[in-house]
């Protein structure tokens, strides 16, 4: 990606000051590459084109359900068989893993690296160059300029001194040479492209380290069972190995608001070795992970997995299915009858329904408190307990410190980009005060600030505005 402010201010800001720009552009000293010396990959137009292509690709990826998130069935559900088949065939339903996206990412990355080293970083050398003092005629060619006549010649020294103080108060770094002044404001703003590109390259490094040496995975774990990394769904690990230790779920619960909505999910975890020895313990909740040996374990989801019910003393664990905010299991009794057991949450009673084919809705037969029993015909049904499942997400990300550093650098870079870089020149020649300057950003604000400055000077000194030649002609 090219610079946020990739061209040095001097090159174009001073377009209207022909002599001035010729004086200040150090492009022929070999320190900054000319256009013919740049690689084709250093083209900013290419950067913009690739960014637009990338944006369009991601836009399509955001609009079309992705297989990696909702599964292929979601694509078929949304688009129907015919369209979905085409989307799958073209790779659009898994666009972030398509050769097209990978090639585009690689090209954009290459472009960013080349632009950084050929265009952005070399511009840092220009920071050392000090702009020259301008003559009155040069100042008149600047985008913003004023020419004022001083009636009392003896005010000259005081005027220059006063201007220097006022410009300093306005935040300019002012330098004086005889009856000339030059001021620079917001020089840190010029660092923005370099800082941002350093951040982007650092991010690239962090992501590369993570993708080669890190891993992520997910495993739903029942109460009292263990998370085993090698048996769970996890990303491919290129370098290194998965942990040998396991994570046991000692307790897990859901905390509700008074209205019954989920407020938080908690799991008490024990890190155990292959002999069962507890190495570490801790409680996790959403937004509060547990870290052991650089592996973070997150509370990702929560639910009720099974219900333990005994039928005439025979305990069975029945799988529960989420049904909106409740969970239910279905037991076919015969061809026409289904027994439905529904549970709202842990600690609530188990509601038992029957549904026959000819009935429009299930009929509530009974409610069983936890540990209690009911009689269904000849069968003694006891609600033993509900068994929760906690969704554990885990990852090891060795590149994370570098990635976080990159985030910080990028944020600083884009914040610096908001700082306008401005130059002001002043020259006093033959009873005339010339004042002018340039600003790439916030030009109107800059113009107003100079106008305000001139008005204040007019109030303090015997100054009178001179019209431009063009304006004189109009008059």
């Amino acid at each position, binding site marked *: 990606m090219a610079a946020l402010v990739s061209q040095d201010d001097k090159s174009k800001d001073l377009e209207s000051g022909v002599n001035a720009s010729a004086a200040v552009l150090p492009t022929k000293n070999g320190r900054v590459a000319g256009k013919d010396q740049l690689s084709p990959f250093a083209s900013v137009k290419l950067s913009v084109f690739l960014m637009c292509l990338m944006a369009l690709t991601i836009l399509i990826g955001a609009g079309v359900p992705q297989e990696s998130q909702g599964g292929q069935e979601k694509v078929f559900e949304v688009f129907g068989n015919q369209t979905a088949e085409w989307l799958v065939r073209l790779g659009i339903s898994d666009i972030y893993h398509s050769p097209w996206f990978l090639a585009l990412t690689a090209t954009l990355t290459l472009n960013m690296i080349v632009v950084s080293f050929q265009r952005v970083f070399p511009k840092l050398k220009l920071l050392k160059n000090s702009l020259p003092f301008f003559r009155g005629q040069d100042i008149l060619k600047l985008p913003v300029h004023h020419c004022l006549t001083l009636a009392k010649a003896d005010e000259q020294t005081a005027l220059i001194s006063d201007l220097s103080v006022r410009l300093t108060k306005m935040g300019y770094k002012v330098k004086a040479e005889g009856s000339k002044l030059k001021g620079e404001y917001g020089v840190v703003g010029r660092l923005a492209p370099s800082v941002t590109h350093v951040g982007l390259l650092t991010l690239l490094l962090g992501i590369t380290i993570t993708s080669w040496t890190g891993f992520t995975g997910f495993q739903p774990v029942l109460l009292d069972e263990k998370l085993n990394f090698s048996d769970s769904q996890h990303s491919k690990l290129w370098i290194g190995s998965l942990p040998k230790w396991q994570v046991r779920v000692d307790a897990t619960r859901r905390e509700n608001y008074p209205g019954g909505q989920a*407020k938080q999910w908690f799991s008490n975890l024990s890190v155990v070795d292959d002999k069962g020895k507890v190495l570490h313990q801790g409680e996790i909740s959403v937004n509060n992970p547990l870290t052991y040996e650089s592996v973070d374990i997150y509370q990702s989801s929560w639910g009720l997995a099974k219900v333990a019910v005994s039928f005439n003393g025979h305990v069975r664990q029945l799988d529960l299915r989420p049904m909106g905010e409740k969970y239910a299991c279905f037991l076919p009794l015969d061809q026409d009858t289904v027994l439905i057991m529904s549970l709202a949450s842990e600690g609530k009673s188990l509601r038992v329904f029957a549904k026959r084919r000819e009935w429009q809705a299930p009929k509530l037969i009974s409610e069983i408190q936890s540990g209690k029993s009911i009689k269904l015909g000849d069968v003694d049904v006891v609600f033993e307990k509900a068994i929760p499942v906690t969704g554990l997400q885990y990852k090891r990300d060795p590149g994370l410190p570098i990635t976080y550093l990159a985030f910080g650098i990028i*944020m600083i870079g884009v914040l610096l980009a908001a700082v306008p870089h401005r130059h002001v020149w002043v020259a006093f020649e033959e009873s005339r005060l010339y004042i002018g300057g340039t600003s790439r950003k916030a*030009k109107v604000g800059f113009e107003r600030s100079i106008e305000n400055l001139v008005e204040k000077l007019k109030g303090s000194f015997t100054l009178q505005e001179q019209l431009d030649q063009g304006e004189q002609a109009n008059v």
Partner: protein
Amino acid sequence: MSDFQLYLTNTAGLSSVASFWVFVASNGTKRFNSIALKVANGVMLLGFIALTVAIITRGIEAQRFPLANLYESLLWFAWATMGGFLYLCRSYGIQQLGWLASLLAATMFLYGSWLPQSQHDISPLVPALVSYWRQIHVPPLIVSYAMFFLAGLSGLLNLWQSGRLRSLAFCVGTIIAASSAIGLGTFSKVDTQWLQLLFVASSVLGPFLAFRSLSVQDAAIEQSKAAKKNAEMYDDVGYRCVAIGFPLLTIGIITGGLWANHAWGSYWSWDPKESMALVTWLSYAAYIHLRIQRDLSAEKLSIVSVIGLLLTLLTYLGFNSLGFGGLHSYGKFK
């Protein structure tokens, strides 16, 4: 929601409507123009103060940071729009942006007021939102969206002042069509596929026709020096808005990544909403590069800023109202 908070929010909403009409009326009178503009600005300031207090009051009532659902985000958006305009007005002395900014704020108030009562009520947070990251991640994004909207509106004014009236008409038509799709997606039962088509087709066709029509220029406006000066100013204002919005969007995306990593162990998951935020980021990154390289004229950049506005609209409201899923479905209420 307490009566006091409702009263403050209504005051802010009515202020935005009132300031819109006063801004519009100020164009009808040369004699009272400056007084009317001062009144309009004053009313806008009143609304801004009322909304600031309303948001703080809501936070105190809810005993949490008051930015957790679509309604609350709309209040923040309107607040940022009003505050952004007042800042620009103070910095640039611009007035014509006032009626567009107040119209935008009023539209957001109206949109928010039509949401179901459950959105207005202070409701408990889902587990994923119980985090200090919420107040770090969301406000920069909402403020950046408001600044991008103001940049797009400045683009419209630039087209107007540069005499590109046909291009302006296409851009305005596109924004109306896209906004209608969002409105219908939120409040009606129209098939979302048709609305997606309306949004996408208008967003592609409108800017394309606007680009093609840039050669058509109103002769009277073209010769006006004042209009040319104003056009330059709106161009500068638009860039200023992007220069403020872009770092905020970057911070919002990055802090979102940090939060996701903290909560789920992954700072990027190609969720539709975060993908859209990246699309918006890329489009404004392209805008900034084009601007710095000066490859495009101010009028063309104005149309680019309108495209940015449409992408921001899609990111902020479109993905929830036009039937796209994802992890960021807290704004949904259907």
